[in-house]
Structures are given as structure tokens and as C-alpha cells.
């Protein structure tokens, strides 16, 4: 079937052209920057000093370094743990459970929970980081309210459980998105279909697992796609909360990239890291997009 232009548009083609200009600029800029990152990743360009001017092509040296030098693989592992627990397990599962349990409720509790998770979403990252470091500090709320009254020594959570604290903070920050998306998805499941499963003898768990989840599978895949991309490249909250430390315990790829590029100053190596991240996220996205498709 041939694509047909709206008659009005066909006689006013300049409108189409005018509308396309910003899009062309945007796509052009994206390609331009990606192209530069790709080009830099084959050089030994540095932020300051002699190699900021007299850089040279180094072939795949930077990429080899990803695997031979300490840092990249460790950060990749930290990022994987961080993404898996905060996005896939935390935000997604928690968001789904909240959406599933709260949708039938019309109580004050629901209002309170919704307000809380929305707040997490709306609060700027830096403010959120401050809130979390204040509550988890040695003199913070959790120690004063729970740990000390129970007779334990106060704990400096950010020092001793850095990764879990960051993960929990990000769950709090991002659950609203999954909650909203799954609420909408569950609304699209016909009540009668769920009731038919009930009459057929499905337990509550079987109704969720064998009827509801398969029906909202495209929504799940879409959600996974978004939150994985966001979490995998997430930077501000973690950086403001821990700066990647203590040691390198919370040094996810985005922080590793930032440090290598702008603190160590190796722009070429940093570009190689960003290209590697792009490839990883791209592969994950392809996987989710396959999930989105209907099975045969």
C-alpha cells in the first residue's frame, strides 16, 4: 500500500519541510556527537597537557584497555548489580506489586503510598541524595529511631553498606514510573478475563502468573527497556551520595566514565567506555524489543 499524504499537506509541502528541520538538526547533532565519541575512542586525546593538542591515532588500544586494565570490568559488574537489583528487581517488581495491590483499594493508605513514591520521582537528584545521606548517617534518622533504641551501636550506613543504600535510594526514586506504567497496564486487562480464570479454578497466584502477566507482557518489556537504559547510565544520585566510594564500591560505569574522562583526563579512553556502554545498552534493548513482539 502506498503512503498517501493528507490532501492539505500535499498542497502545502513547505509545512512538512519546516516541521522536519528541528528533527533533522536533532538527529544530526546526535549522530555528530556519537561520531566524535567513536572517533575519539581510537585516539589518545587527553583533557589537558601535550596530548590535548598533539594527539595521535592508537587503533584499538583503548578498547583493549577496557579488558586489560582494572576498572572497567569491575564497574560493569557494579553497574549490573546496581541495575539488576534497583531497576529490574526493585522498581519493576515493587512497582508491579504496588499497582496490583493498591488498584482495588480506595483508602488513605493508598494515597499516602502514592504520594511517597511520587515524591521520590519528583524530588531533584541532588536533594534526594542529601535526604538519603542525612537519614542514613551515623547521627541520622534511622540510627536515632531504630538502631540506637534497640540497643545497638549506631551504624554509618553509607560507609558500611554503600551499594545497598544506593540501590534502595534508587528504588525509592524510580518506583513511581513502574507503578504508573503497571497501573495503566492492569487497567487494560479485562475484569471478565480474570474472572473467567477464577471460575476455571486458577488461584490468585496462577491468575497473575498465567493470565495477567502474559497479557501485559508488552508493557513489561517496554518498562524493562526504559528503566534498564536509565539505570544503566544513571549518574547524579549515586555520584552525589557516594562519589563512587567508599573505595570503588559504588563506582558504576557512568561514574567510572566521568572520572576517567574529566578527573584523570583521558578523553580517548573515556570515549571508548561510552561506546562500550552504548553497545551494551543497545544489545539489551534488542533483547527487550524481541520480548515486545507477539509469540508465534
Amino acid at each position, binding site marked *: 500500500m502506498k503512503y498517501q499524504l493528507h490532501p492539505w499537506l500535499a498542497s502545502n509541502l513547505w509545512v512538512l519541510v519546516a516541521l522536519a528541520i528541528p528533527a533533522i538538526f536533532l538527529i544530526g547533532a546526535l549522530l555528530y556527537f556519537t561520531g566524535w565519541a567513536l572517533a575519539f575512542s581510537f585516539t589518545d586525546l587527553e583533557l589537558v597537557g601535550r596530548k590535548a593538542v598533539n594527539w595521535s591515532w592508537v587503533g584499538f588500544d583503548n578498547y583493549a584497555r577496557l579488558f586489560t586494565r582494572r576498572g572497567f570490568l569491575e564497574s560493569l559488574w557494579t553497574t549490573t548489580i546496581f541495575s539488576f537489583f534497583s531497576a529490574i528487581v526493585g522498581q519493576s517488581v515493587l512497582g508491579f506489586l504496588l499497582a496490583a495491590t493498591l488498584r482495588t483499594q480506595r483508602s488513605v493508605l493508598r494515597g499516602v503510598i502514592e504520594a511517597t513514591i511520587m515524591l521520590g520521582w519528583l524530588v531533584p537528584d541532588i536533594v534526594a541524595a542529601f535526604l538519603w545521606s542525612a537519614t542514613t548517617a551515623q547521627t541520622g534518622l534511622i540510627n536515632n529511631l531504630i538502631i540506637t533504641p534497640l540497643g545497638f551501636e549506631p551504624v554509618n550506613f553509607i560507609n558500611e553498606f554503600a551499594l545497598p543504600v544506593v540501590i534502595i535510594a534508587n528504588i525509592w526514586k524510580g518506583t513511581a514510573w513502574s507503578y504508573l506504567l503497571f497501573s495503566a497496564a492492569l487497567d487494560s486487562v*479485562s475484569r471478565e478475563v480474570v474472572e*473467567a480464570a477464577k*471460575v476455571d*479454578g*486458577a488461584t490468585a497466584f*496462577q491468575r497473575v502468573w498465567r493470565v495477567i502477566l502474559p*497479557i501485559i507482557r508488552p508493557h513489561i518489556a517496554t518498562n524493562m527497556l526504559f528503566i534498564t537504559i536509565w539505570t544503566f547510565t544513571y549518574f547524579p544520585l549515586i555520584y552525589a551520595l557516594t562519589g563512587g566510594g567508599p573505595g570503588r564500591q559504588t563506582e558504576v560505569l557512568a561514574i567510572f566514565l566521568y572520572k576517567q574522562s574529566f578527573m584523570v583526563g583521558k578523553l580517548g579512553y573515556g570515549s571508548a567506555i561510552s561506546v562500550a556502554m552504548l553497545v551494551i545498552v543497545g544489545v539489551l534493548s534488542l533483547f527487550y524489543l524481541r520480548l515486545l513482539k507477539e509469540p508465534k
Partner: protein
Amino acid sequence: MSDVTLKNVRKSYGALEVIHGIDLDIRSGEFVVFVGPSGCGKSTLLRMIAGLEAISGGDIGIGGRVVNNVPSPQRGIAMVFQSYALYPHMSVYENMAFGLRLSKAPQAEIDRRVNEAARILQIESYLSRMPKQLSGGQRQRVAIGRAIVRDPKVFLFDEPLSNLDAALRAQTRVEIAKLHETLDATMIYVTHDQVEAMTLADKIVVLNAGVIEQVGTPLELYRSPANTFVAEFIGGNKMNLLPVKGSASGVALPNGRTVPFAGSDLSHAVTLGVRPEHLERVGADSAQISGAVEVIEQLGEFAIVHFRTREGDEMTIKLGGAPDIALHEDIHVALDPAVGHVFDDAGRALRAPAG
């Protein structure tokens, strides 16, 4: 034994009571139709029998056992929903097999029962299709097939034909009647369509605003409606209701003429009811009621003529074939007391017409 008994069944949503104490006995193997206007509580009642809605008061028994607190799957029922409610991610076969799979039936047994149901409904050729590749009528068969596979004691249908076009609805109606014949199971069928009710039911239950107005066979309801609500609701064409003055020997029409009813005291009568098909068109000299034609609905086989009497009442008469009458013309009718229904001021029938 698969009779269904309702004893003083009530349902409230919060402070709002929508079912006000229903008593009903449904015998094993009977085809019972719940009929009534939208919002009268038909679906609610059916869903309470199915176990999808909690009962606020009274008892529901299936097969001699009170099932108030028995979960749906153990009630021995199967339900066909208005929206078909097929599982969109499963093939037709899997839709029908789902209940058996959940109860861990052996594969051979599942195969046998699904194929048997598919054969009865003639859907064998699309067992491997997905629901969205089916037409509305085919989906409806699959939904019925899913119910048959469960081999229930009681089938529950909630307006199963309302999403089908007129021709398919008539065809499926006949098929459901045949199915009842074949399976010999108790069937409870909800509809707001009185044609479905009349043609399918062994017994019709007319509901209105959460109470039963009347229970009876289709002919009983047609011939002797217990009140004006049933009189107007049952029957292909709405019954004419005229305000009258009752006396010991008959009723006086708005134009003063008296229709004599022998043998019954009608001094409390306030309404006379007569079906359009029971009015007789006569010449001006023997007219009991005269009026002017306002609308003619010509259906080929017969015509429904709407006219306004000299006293201002709207009435309809059914005339066979293509009657020789034009708009605004005068029309004269007579009615035989044998087919008249008489109601008191509460709308209750005072006498049933003979035959």
C-alpha cells in the same frame, strides 16, 4: 442433582441494597432466563450464583448443598461472559483446556474433552488459532466450548448474544437451545431481550429493581402477567394500557363506553391492558375506540399502527399484511373482553384473560 435454590438472597454495595431478597427454585435440567431492564440486578444475581460476588444475606444452594462460602471452581458451574472473556494469549485449544490443565488432568483426558466440545460446537478447524483471529460469533462458540469442557452441573450465561449482529444472534439462539437439549444441564441465562427469554426459557424470571416481578413459563407470562410491569415487558409488541373506571360488571373506557367482564368484581380496576395483536380493526359503527393514525411501522408480514384516541391516549394495533390505511386517517377498533387484562391501582392483575 443440579437444582439451584435461592432463599431470601440479598446484595448490598455499602449502604445501597440492589437485590432485595430473592426466593427462587430452579429444577435440575431446567432452562431459566432472568430478564429485566438494565440495572435491575440480573448480572449481580448471576455473579452471586457463580461465586464471583459475595452474598450479603440469604442462602444459595446448588445440588442440595449451600454454597455461600464455596469458591467458584468447586460450585460445579461454568460461566459464559458477555465479552466472551477469552484468554487473549492462548490458542482456542488452550483456552478450552485451561481449567483442565489447572486441575492437572492427564493430557489424553484434556484432548478428549476439548475435541468433544469442539465437535459439538463445530469449531474443530480453528483450534490452533488465537482469539483475535476469530470473528465475534466464533469467539462466542469458543467461550461456550470452554464452559462445556468443564462439564458443569450448571451453565451460567450473562447476555452471551448481545455483541452479535441480528442474524447471528438468531442462529446462535437456536444453537443454544439445541445445546441444552444435548447436554441436559441446568442453564441460567441472563438477557434483557424478551425474544431470547420467550424462545429459550422453560421458565422466565422477570426482575425489576432487585425484586422478582413474576416467575412462569413464557406462555404463562404472556397470557397472564401478574402486573403491569410484566405485561409491558413480555410480548413482542408493548401492551396497550388504558386508564379505566372499574365497576361490578366491567370497566368504563375513557370515552365512556363499557367493556363488560362477566363473573369478576372489577370495582378496583384502574387500568385495562390489551395487546396490539388482540385489538380488532372494525368499521366506524361498531367501534369501541376511535383515533387518528400517527405512525405506521410497515414490516411486510404485518404492520404496527400507532394511533391517538379522541381522548388523547396513545395506542398501537398490529394488523396483518399491508393494511389499507394512511397517516392521519381515522381508525376504529374493538376489543374482545376475553383478551383484556385488568389491573388495580398498584398495577396488580385483577383477572387473567381466558385462554
